[in-house]
């Protein structure tokens, strides 16, 4: 299965938040919910260089990421990608990532509304995001799997 397969792209286009699993040099697990965009066959996830996720990827490039359509709870599909990741801060990629994130998360009615109703948080947001060096975790997919039905988990409730 490839990232360009229509069924894979369909889930990626609907998904808003990726869950990235990484592990430390000493083998300790970590999971982050992160924003992401898909660019030229790669998954680009945004974080900061000081985060545990970025440190882990620097120590061990193996990652696993899952995606789902959060806006449609009746869609029981889940996408799982195993990949090799690197932490990148090169300016061209960061600028491309920022533009992609703005298009996906901000420049449309729900994203703009979310910004407008939180204008009193803009200054803290600006200080928060500028306090740390931003980076992209660049994931090259190695294997891709679609789990068609997660509904069996519902019986555990």
């Amino acid at each position, binding site marked *: 299965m490839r990232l360009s397969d229509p069924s894979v792209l369909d889930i990626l286009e609907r998904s808003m*938040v990726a869950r990235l699993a990484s592990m430390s040099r000493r083998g300790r697990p970590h999971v982050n919910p992160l924003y992401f965009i898909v660019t030229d066959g790669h998954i680009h996830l945004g974080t900061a260089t000081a985060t545990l996720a970025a440190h882990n990827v620097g120590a061990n490039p193996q990652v696993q990421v899952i995606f789902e359509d959060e806006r449609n709870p009746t869609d029981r599909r889940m996408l799982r990608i195993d990949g090799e990741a690197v932490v990148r801060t090169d300016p061209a990629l960061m600028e491309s990532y920022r533009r992609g994130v703005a298009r996906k998360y901000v420049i449309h009615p729900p994203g703009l509304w979310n910004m407008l109703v939180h204008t009193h948080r803009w200054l803290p947001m600006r200080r928060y995001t500028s306090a740390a060096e931003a980076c992209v975790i660049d994931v090259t997919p190695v294997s891709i799997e679609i789990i068609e039905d997660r509904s069996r988990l519902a019986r555990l409730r």
Partner: protein
Amino acid sequence: MTAITNRISLEEASDLLDPPARACVGFVMNDRPHVEPVTLQFERGRFMIGLDASLPLDRCDEVVLVVDEGLYYFDLRAVYVRGTPRPVGSDDDAGRRFEIEATKISCWDYGRLRAVA
């Protein structure tokens, strides 16, 4: 000198856990990181998860449970629990249940970004 934080207490995030919006657990299996969706019940301060019976969580010394909510920046909230999984009850057709004995809990809410001393 002030810093900006999005951290909140578990009490302030407790509505996230009942019922949980999205929950998943991260663990290491065969020297690789894995992440699986789980069901979660937060009962009297105990984190009880259910997941596929084929996953060897009982062989993991440590797991990370993440519950998160929100799609847009100021709606993003999460509860992060690092801990030890302990089997609870017996397996059934649907899966296995574990209690996560927490060693670390962090919660954040981007809608609460604020300056702190």
